[in-house]
């Protein structure tokens, strides 16, 4: 499964709206769209750390690393390169 698809599936599994209402691109800001709740960012951090065996440092806990699918994927890939 592609990384984009994996992240999208995780977001879809944590929606706070009904599935058939949801349509978003890989560059849409998932927080501004209101599809996820305020606990989602930390849930995503925990998911990324366990799923990809990464440690997200305090100075990487920027909302801009997690607000779109592409930003999340880029962040994971940049971490994986330096792992």
């Amino acid at each position, binding site marked *: 499964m592609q990384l984009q698809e994996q992240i999208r599936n995780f977001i879809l599994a944590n929606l706070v709206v009904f599935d058939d209402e949801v349509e978003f691109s890989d560059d849409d800001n998932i*927080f501004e769209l209101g599809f996820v709740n*305020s606990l989602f960012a*930390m849930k995503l951090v*925990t998911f990324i750390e366990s799923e990809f065996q990464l440690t997200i440092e*305090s100075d990487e*806990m920027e*909302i801009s690393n997690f607000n779109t699918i592409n930003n999340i994927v880029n962040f994971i890939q940049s971490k994986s390169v330096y792992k």
Partner: protein
Amino acid sequence: MIYTTKNTSADFNWTEYFTTLNSGETPGVDANLYFQNVRELLRENAHLLGLVLGDVLRKLLRDVPVKPEPRVLELGAGTGFLTRLLLTMYQGSGVLVDNCQTSFDAYNQVAHNHADRITYLLEDLFTLKLTETFDLVCSFGLIEHFKEKAEILSIHKQFCKEDGYLILIVPMDSFLTRAYYEVHPEINLGYRELLTKKIALEQLRASGLQPIRAEVSQGYVYDFLTILCK
């Protein structure tokens, strides 16, 4: 964000600055516009709060032997944001206590994923009668509302297990926090005492608590202080 300097001499030209800002011929300050701009800059953002609070909690609880799936009690819980975040990060279950019907109603709007793991008690915490003690007893934005803190802190301690921990979170006295409350007067309900880290730790020790670690948030629209105590 990039700022470019408008100052080309030793004396800053305020007249020119405000004339340009207002795009008019007459220099003047639109105080309301300025006020609204600063309010917008320092606007609460629940997603950002979740990330910043999660980050500071991880630092606060690093290497702390919190029991797996802890039982959490949150006092003056509001919507129980702190407990819901702790349960997201560490699993477990919790009890929220607040005697505000509006907060309870707001909690019910957001409870969905945690409803089976959280009990909400619509009660006055000063008359709270619970036989259970908890692995984590916490509050977020509670103790700064009390001038005399000994009683409210003793309630935290009363319901904490011998080997449990207290997590106290308060807005910290900093330039940023002062600016935040200055432009959000509508949320200044009743008494609110901003505390520096030093004063907060002194007050906790004076109330018989033992602070273990204190961490300050980074990157939110106000600064908050998180303290782990026994």
